[in-house]
C-alpha cells in the first residue's frame, strides 16, 4: 500500500531564510506526488504536483519541489520564506483510492 512520511512534525525558520520540508513516499509504480498547504481554519490548497517529466517542479507562492526516485523523496523548498508562509504543509501521493497524505509539517516563521 502507498504511504507518505513527513519526518518533521514542526519546523521553525526565520523570515527570509530558506526552507526545505522533507517528504518520503512508498508507492509501487510511478508516483504522482503533491504538496498541499493548509492555513489555520482553511481548506487544502495545492502548491504543486509531479506527474512526469522534469523532476524539478515549480509551484505557486515561490515554492518548488524535486522528485528523486532513487531516494523516494519529494522535498519542498523555498529560497526565502515570508511570515505568511506559516501553515501546515502536507505531502501526498496519488493512487487508485484517492490521495494518501502524510501527517503534515507545521511551519513556524520567526521574525
Amino acid at each position, binding site marked *: 500500500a502507498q504511504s507518505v512520511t513527513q519526518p518533521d512534525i514542526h519546523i521553525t525558520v526565520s523570515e527570509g531564510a530558506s526552507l526545505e520540508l522533507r517528504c518520503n513516499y512508498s508507492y509501487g509504480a510511478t508516483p504522482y506526488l503533491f504538496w498541499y498547504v493548509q492555513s489555520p481554519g482553511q*481548506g*487544502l*490548497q495545492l502548491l504543486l504536483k509531479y506527474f512526469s517529466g522534469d523532476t524539478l517542479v515549480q509551484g505557486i507562492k515561490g515554492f518548488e519541489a524535486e522528485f528523486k526516485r532513487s531516494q523516494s523523496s519529494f522535498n519542498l523548498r523555498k529560497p526565502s520564506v515570508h511570515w505568511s508562509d506559516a501553515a501546515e504543509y502536507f505531502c501526498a501521493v*496519488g493512487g487508485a483510492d*484517492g*490521495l*494518501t497524505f502524510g501527517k503534515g509539517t507545521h511551519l513556524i516563521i520567526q521574525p
Partner: protein
Amino acid sequence: EPEVTQTPSHQVTQMGQEVILRCVPISNHLYFYWYRQILGQKVEFLVSFYNNEISEKSEIFDDQFSVERPDGSNFTLKIRSTKLEDSAMYFCASSERGGVGGPRDEQFFGPGTRLTVL
C-alpha cells in the same frame, strides 16, 4: 475562479444523532471525494464517487457512512449514528477526471466542515 463549497462550516451534534454534511463541487467536475482530518492528525481518504456510485472507499468508510448526489449540484456525506471519534474536519473535493495522472485529475478541496460530536 470556481471553487468547492461546503456547509455548514461547523456542526455540533450529540452522540448517536445523524448528520449530513453538504458539498457543492465545481460544476463541470464528475468525480467527488470525501476526506477527514482528526485534530492533529493527517488527512485520510474516505470515499470517491463517480456516476452516482461509490468507486473507492477506505476502511474508515463503514456502514455508518453514506454518500449521495441528490441533485445536479450537491454531494452529501451522511453519518447515521455519530460517535465521539467521528469528531473531525471533513473535506469534500472534486476533480474533472478520476485517477491522478494528469492536470484534469487535480482534486480541488473545499474549506471543510468541522464536526464536533458531544
